[in-house]
């Protein structure tokens, strides 16, 4: 197929189709509308399901139903809409159903704005709804990576029987870049879905999709079973990229489109004789703690850069356990930091530690 120039939201929609998405349920919200618009045309044309629901709450519960009936299901929204979906997301995690959720983040809190933001970091990485559960959460930095990860996300969701969150922002949703849709992505070792409640009793015994456990012992066991999945994600499926880390004297920690801007910043820093690396989490849950063990000894200062007020700092602190100086630079409100601002933040951090 070669590379195709597409808008981020449309590219993510097509990636879902390529990933075998059977059904989409969603409600309009800026800046992700091109995603359902694209699917409304192309899902039904391919005999798949597309429903514009009456609300985000309804959409995520439709996801629950279809996932429980065995479908590969997608919903997408942006921050306030994702907040509304939390009810359904915790039920999906509790009932151990696979689903993919795309969050094209915008500024908050409340109605906030519609410009790019990474303000949902805590909500995404802490589960988001009630109870003990987590979402396997991927934060791509480019359209190619978004497309590849979305294709794979349906496999991951099926493997873990757990929702997968694709955390992007308005930048990725709105930008256009050439994308190759035929990249091979990892196939996970999937078991047949013998647990579905789809009414087809000729092919399986009675199945129940449920997250209710009134007996405390049963619920404790259920919680421990879920925890095993999250432990497995942490042990085996952290993802990250180390950029320009050889000979680095200082490093930026940034995910998603912010890491993209940081890439320009480290080029500018190199022109000034400063060798700066980037530790880029690709999974924001599980947080790539392993990456911090790989930092060069010379790197004592880490500059966390985000489009929020520092929501990832806690995770960086936990991962480093006091071994590094943690600095922060962030822009909020939908303002995207420019590379020069990140350069200044790195120089300032470097100056502080050299004093």
């Amino acid at each position, binding site marked *: 197929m070669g590379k195709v120039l597409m808008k981020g939201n449309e590219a993510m929609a097509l990636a879902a189709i390529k990933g075998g998405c059977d059904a989409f349920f969603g409600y309009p919200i800026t800046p992700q509308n091109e995603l359902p618009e694209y699917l409304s045309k192309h899902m039904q044309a391919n005999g798949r399901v597309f429903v514009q629901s009456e609300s985000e709450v309804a959409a995520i519960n439709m996801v629950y139903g279809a996932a429980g009936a065995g479908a590969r299901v997608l919903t997408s929204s942006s921050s306030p809409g994702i907040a509304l979906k939390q009810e359904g997301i915790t039920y999906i995690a509790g009932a151990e159903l696979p689903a993919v959720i795309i969050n094209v983040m915008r500024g908050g809190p409340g109605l906030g704005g519609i410009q790019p933001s990474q303000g949902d970091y805590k909500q995404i990485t802490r589960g988001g709804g009630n109870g003990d559960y987590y979402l396997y959460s991927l934060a791509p930095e480019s359209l190619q990576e978004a497309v590849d990860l979305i294709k794979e996300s349906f496999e991951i969701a099926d493997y873990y029987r757990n929702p997968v969150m694709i955390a992007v922002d*308005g930048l990725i949703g709105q930008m256009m870049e050439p994308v190759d849709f035929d990249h091979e992505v990892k196939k996970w070792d999937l078991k047949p879905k013998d647990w579905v409640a789809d009414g087809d009793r000729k092919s399986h015994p009675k199945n129940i999709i449920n997250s209710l456990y009134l007996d405390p012992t049963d619920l404790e066991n259920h919680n421990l079973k879920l925890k095993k999945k999250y432990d497995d994600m942490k042990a085996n499926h952290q993802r990250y990229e180390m950029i320009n880390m050889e000979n680095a004297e200082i490093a930026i920690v940034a995910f998603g489109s912010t890491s993209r801007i940081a890439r320009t910043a480290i080029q500018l820093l190199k022109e000034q004789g400063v060798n700066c690396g980037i530790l880029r989490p690709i999974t924001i849950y599980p947080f790539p703690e392993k990456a911090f063990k790989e930092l060069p000894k010379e790197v004592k200062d880490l500059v966390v850069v985000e489009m929020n007020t520092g929501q990832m700092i806690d995770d960086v602190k936990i991962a480093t356990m006091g071994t590094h100086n943690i600095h922060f630079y962030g822009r909020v409100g939908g303002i995207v930091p420019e590379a020069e601002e990140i350069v200044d933040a790195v120089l300032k951090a470097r100056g502080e530690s050299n004093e």
Partner: protein
Amino acid sequence: MINEQLIIAGFGGQGVMLMGQLLSFAATNKDINTLWFPSYGPETRGGTANCSVTISEESVNSPVISKPDSLIIMNKPSLAKFQDKLKKDGCLFINTSLVKDVPIRDGVNVYKIPANDIASKLGNPKVANMVMMGAYLAVTKVFSQEDIIEVLKEKFVGEKASLIGINQEALNEGAKAVTL
């Protein structure tokens, strides 16, 4: 080697977004890296619109352009908003049909093109954007006119195909405006 960062700005309806996209499509056809990013806001007509386009044979990093190599300015408010961002010795293309009596900064190469007047003379005021594109290509040589026409042929199919002729004329007139 191409390594171009461009901001195009004007108001909604001037074809600002399309201009940027045409350049990104031309880059994709040649397997050159590109990134197009639009300003976006509530869906209203007539508001300001701008987009950033990066075309590079190296990998494209920041989607946000802080110091563009070139600026295409389609209306008055856009000049005030963007001209100080332009790199020193960068190229500033101004649609003088709509931008008059505005102080222009020093240290950049200024190209004045009465794009709306030229487009009206061609019989279709809507192609003012392609007049500016013609001027931009003639100066920067990022792509040839043929590269852009090839994209138009891919995108303008059916009834719209008849519009390719006037777009070609607009590109020519825009080129003439900066080379004469």
